[in-house]
């Protein structure tokens, strides 16, 4: 029974942990240079090395004029037209690759980004993550389960031996007192034992059978081989490219959508020069540069080509789909990521550490519902919830605990018809 208890609590604990992380990260979003950097710059720039754009370390020192730098960041194309020499040299140096425009960034935000770049220190190899990774935790859990199982087995054998000894001793005692007693039955003929064992076997079989039945169609830890070895660890982890740079529709659509803009960056990045080696699930080393070449063959692109890519001659990459819900379930990324401001990691695990992506959660209904029971909606921030006047009133006069907020369940997020229609 200890085992089932553990299994029940495992995702629960992780969820709480992750929710904690999420809350922490949301609160620090607003004027956080790091977040802004990841969101806007990291897809083309790194601080300590050159990507599509130059390495940004010491950018403030390089630029002759801070004001010019701000103007350049806001609208580099307009600034180029001013004829600034430094800017035009830079532009030519990078093969006239156009930088994105950021007119919506405020000066304060640009300042925050530049401050982050200035304060940046290259991470040391050992400072990789403070906590225990979910995978590690899981492996430990598995080990413990084996220990518990062996212990239980030994105890059970001991109990049977002791009971048998007890029966023999009892007979000896009775014999001594002269009371005739039947020969004690060996345990394999004893109805009590047989009954006990059958009940235990029946319960165990039932437990495993129902667990297996529930698991049908679920594919937790599914980790298929993809046509191109795309490492999320390299892209989202080491290079800190924000998720929605590639999964563009995650804020608007039901699907996060699969990227087709690989060549935005890989026009410039044509080899893997990362310090960290890439390994596939079997532990074989993967040559990153070869994988980029595979990408080029899909897009029918030869490195150094000056003409734009002819999409009519390109073939789309047939990624193997990993996360999939049954047809009778409706899931919308926009609802969760945009309206709910849920971090990707809640469902997809620590994707920044995965070379080869695998399904992190079992995506079962229990998984969804448990989260809906505890997760708060953006009750104060999103104008949609202004309709819930009753809750607003109750939060105000203390009937509802305002520190706990309003959970998804309280606005009906665990009702059948919200996802099944």
């Amino acid at each position, binding site marked *: 029974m200890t085992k089932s208890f553990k299994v029940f609590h495992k995702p629960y604990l992780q969820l709480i942990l992750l929710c904690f992380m999420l809350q922490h990260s949301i609160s620090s979003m607003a004027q956080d240079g790091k977040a802004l950097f990841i969101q806007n710059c990291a897809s083309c720039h790194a601080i300590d090395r050159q990507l599509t754009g130059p390495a940004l370390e010491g950018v403030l020192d390089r630029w002759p004029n801070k004001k010019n730098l701000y103007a350049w960041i806001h609208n580099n194309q307009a600034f180029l037209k001013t004829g600034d020499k430094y800017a035009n040299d830079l532009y030519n140096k990078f093969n006239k690759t156009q930088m994105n425009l950021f007119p919506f960034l405020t000066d304060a935000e640009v300042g925050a980004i530049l401050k982050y770049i200035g304060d940046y220190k290259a991470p040391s190899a050992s400072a990789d993550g403070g906590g225990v990774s979910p995978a590690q935790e899981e492996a430990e859990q598995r080990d413990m389960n084996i220990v518990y199982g062996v212990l239980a087995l030994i105890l059970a054998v001991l109990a049977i031996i002791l009971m048998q000894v007890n029966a023999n001793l009892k007979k000896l005692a009775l014999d001594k007192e002269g009371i005739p007693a039947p020969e004690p039955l060996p345990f394999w003929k004893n109805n009590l034992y047989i009954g006990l064992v059958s009940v235990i076997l029946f319960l165990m079989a039932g437990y495993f059978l129902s667990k297996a039945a529930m698991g049908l169609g679920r*594919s937790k830890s599914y980790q298929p081989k993809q046509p191109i070895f795309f490492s999320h660890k390299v892209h989202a982890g080491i290079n800190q490219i924000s998720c929605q740079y590639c999964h563009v529709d995650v804020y*608007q659509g*039901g699907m996060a*959508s699969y990227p087709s803009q690989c060549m935005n960056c890989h026009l410039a990045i044509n080899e893997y020069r990362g310090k960290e080696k890439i390994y596939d699930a079997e532990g074989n080393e993967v040559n990153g540069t070869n994988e980029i070449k595979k990408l080029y063959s899909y897009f029918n692109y030869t490195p150094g080509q000056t003409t734009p890519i002819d999409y009519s001659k390109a073939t*789309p990459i047939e990624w193997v789909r990993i996360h999939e819900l049954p047809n009778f379930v409706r899931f919308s990324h926009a609802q969760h990521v945009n309206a709910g401001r849920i971090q990707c990691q809640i469902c997809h695990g620590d994707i920044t550490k995965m070379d080869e992506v695998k399904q992190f959660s079992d995506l079962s209904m229990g998984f969804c519902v448990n989260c809906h029971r505890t997760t708060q909606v953006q009750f104060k921030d999103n104008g949609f*919830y202004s309709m819930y006047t009753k809750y607003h009133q109750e939060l105000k006069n203390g009937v509802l605990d305002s520190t706990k907020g309003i959970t998804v369940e309280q606005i*009906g997020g665990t009702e059948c*018809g919200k996802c099944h*229609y």
Partner: protein
Amino acid sequence: MGKKKNVKYWQNFGEYTSSDASKVKENVEFPNSLLFEAEESAKEGKSFLEKPAPRRDFLKYVGYGTAAATIAASCKVPVRKAIPLLDVPEDFVPGLSYNYATTCLQDGQNISVVAKVRDGRPIKIEGNEECPITKGGTSATVQASVLDLYDGYRLRYPLAKGKEATFEEVDNAINGALNANPNNAVLLTSTINSPTTLELIEKFLAKYPNSRHITYDMDFEGATLIAENEACYGRKYIPAYRFDKAKVVLSVQCDFLGTWLNPIEYANLFATGRKIDEKNPQMNKLIHVGYLPSLTSSNADDNFVMKIKDTKYFLLAVYNVLKGLPIDNIIQDSKQKEIVLYVAKQLNDNKSKALVVAGLHYNKFRVLVNAINDLLDANGNTIDWSTSLNAYKTVGNQEFQALVDDMLAGKVSTMFFYNTNPVYSLRQSDAFVKALSKVNMKVSFNSKLDETSVLCDYQIPDHHYLESWGDVELKSNHFSFLQPTIYPLFKTRQFQDSLINLLGYNTPYADYLTEYWTRKLGSQDEWHKTIQKGIYYIDKPGYAPSVQSKAEQRLQEILLSWVDEIKKIDSNKFEIVLYKKIGVPLTYQSANPWLHELPDPITRATWDNYALMSPQMAKNELGIDISDRYQADRYETNPKKPVIQIDVDGQSFMLPVLILPGIASNVIGIAMGYGRGASSSVNSEVSTDSTIEIAKKRLGPGVAAIGFNIFPVLKNSNFDLWLQNVNIKPVDKKYKVALTQTHNSYKNIQYGDRVEVAKEMTLADFIEKPSEILEDREKEYKPYGGLERYTEDATMYHPYDNPGIKWGMNIDLNLCNGCGACVVACVAENNIVVVGKDEVARYHDMQWIRIDRYYSGEDTNNTKVLFEPMLCQQCDNAPCENVCPVGATNHSSEGLNQMTYNRCIGTRYCANNCPYKVRRFNWADYNGADSFPDNQREVLSDVVMYMNTDLPRMVLNPDVTCRSRGVMEKCTFCAQRLQQGKLDAKKESRPLETGKDGKWDVKVACQQACPTKAIVFGNVNDKDSAITQVRKDNPYRTFKVLEQLHTLPNITYLAKVRNATDVV
């Protein structure tokens, strides 16, 4: 209301006579044996239940089941691919729907619509709310038109002499033949309102000397109307009928709400006069005189049923009365005279606010109608001559006859057909086929290999309208545009492009169109804006100056010869009257399964045409007395209906009989548009099995060869669609007609007699005592805390908490005219399956919303009709929820009665316990989702199998689950739209809008489709929403159906008010 209490409401003859079958139905919702099937098995010597299921069968099933389960269990989860778009279009998010304005073209009628495109596929059609004519309204046919795009039986490539060819080959062949013989080409098309296309045709005519463009529609409605307008007023067009300005409308067998000219517009305009302001109740009055029931007669305040001869005299008599002339010489019957005087008085009292319209069978009488409208001062008031309706420009019969003569004489060298099918619909189609064989080259641009196309040498199939570019002049100065919403599915080419090719130009039509309109609108930018909006009009306020009328003069010229003609009609003999059925357009959509499965609002029959006759005629000729409860049962419970043989003009054919109140005693009504390719098996003499098979292969299985084609029987050469001197005799044959009329009964032993499902009252009663219904409800609820408190006090359950949203709907029975647009809209939105005729006959119809038809009154020959849309009432105290053993149906915090398909185990307890009978059970795997196709073949009909093929499945809405066998389903208030609407609001961080200041985040499918805006939906908790407003404005007429059961429905209805002396 005092009088009302005694009114008898009945849905079918069984209920009318309280027959045994109806009593059985009251006791057992799902009888183990259907009465008619039991009868048949009894004939075979064994009862339906006693068919043996021996031990061997049992073992077989167990063995098979085990083996199948093993195999199924060993199947691996398939590997699915995720393929990104390479070159992503700007602002495109996969999985979101985008709307594109376009125009629905069908049978000479054009409706400005918006196509909802999901991932490159149009999946739903909505009305274009920018259009000032239809104002966002649609009809059943418009709603169903999206399915035609995915019709697997459209021609998929061009044909040359019956063989697949490339466009180049066909073009070369046609151009070669035309260059060799450029004279005497004829372009035969349906009505074309497109300015650019007409320009191209003009150029074509200029290029090829002596060529002609002739317009021929299946629907001849416009021909005589336009001709007579020219004769009387010198205006060769159909004016705008302003039903909104009319206080009194007299319809003489004119179904302007259902099938006449532009019914969506007319229904909308007419509804403005039906909307009741409870503070100052007044409404227009609709008087219908005729011999055949229609949507208009069913909605009439006064409906007078009389024979054809009598209606003709009637019209003449009304004219005489208005003119102040005596009528004694025309009408002798005193009752008839009373009617004439009554109607004439109503019209005369509302001079300049009255309108007379007459239907198809009154072509000669248009002069008389014009003269009466002149007397009523209608021109310039209720008839607006400043705008013309651009439809139905079909040529007259004489012109067409001249064409046939020319063809016979070899004076036509080449013939082009576009969107027209004369071989099917022409009365002398034999002669036409013969004449056609004399034409050197025949080219068809029709999209199917239909009756005409198959006789042509070359076929270049046209695009569907959803694949086309184009422009249409709906009314004068009102333009609507087409833009492609999908890349063409097949190797088809737009007609206009074919025309450009014949002209030898190089510009594609899309460029031609852009160039034309950029020139007209002034700039490319303006054109882009216009095509986005879909509509462009120049609003000209004010009316044209009153017209000079020669109607009076013309009338005097022909009056005497008319009277002679009328005298000759022998009204003791039977007459056949042809009519158009709602939802069955005459040609283009005739292969649309959604439309065939839509129960006709009048007869509630699906999938067939039949001979309609009055109870009196049935009694006299067939010996079926439906006022006798045994005979009513025998006729009604068995879908196999008696068959009659009809002899007319030396031809004889057979049709099943449907008995219907509201038909003149000597009239047989037969619907047009059926029997495509071949006639059904009831007429084994007309079509053999092989012809039916061929027709099915060409036009589609299960849709071709349905019903009987009545066109060939019409031998007389005028446009009056009626036949005189008809003989009928019963034959010893039965034919199955799938009627849904008896399927749902509200009578139940638990709930007692069905009273007050629908409520109506007269206008006079309403003015006298508006609070009657409210007081009744107050009385009902008094013991339970009154209207204010009963929701909480009358139940032992806790009332549901609706903290944010509570969805609610209101249906105004005064505005609903029963047209069925909502039914098809619901089918399209919610992936509702087509089950086929046999399954409908077995009570297995699946539509989530139905239009209940009630008759009231004791006289079965002339009854009043009341339509009431019935759908899941989303009860707050739902009887279905309590009985589900697995909790598959339960209540949401937004007031919805949710239905979870994947949880349902199919006990059907919920359907049994539903007092409204709105739950639908998947008796078979209609979707084909869960079975191997071969396993369905014996079980389901051809058409269901066809609907499960890849092409028609493209129309499915990806947001809605397809239900599999053994699952209950029902209206969900379009849950997918509600979720999307909420998400849209959340994304923009603002409250949900349902009608505040005309802003809508959510509209349910039935609401959006309704041409009269009878359905209002929204958030009841929002005090500014449209639904709150409607309920606040109409406290007196509001009621809930069967509310005495305390089911607490979330749908309210507004009682119908009839502008008549009595509700019966």
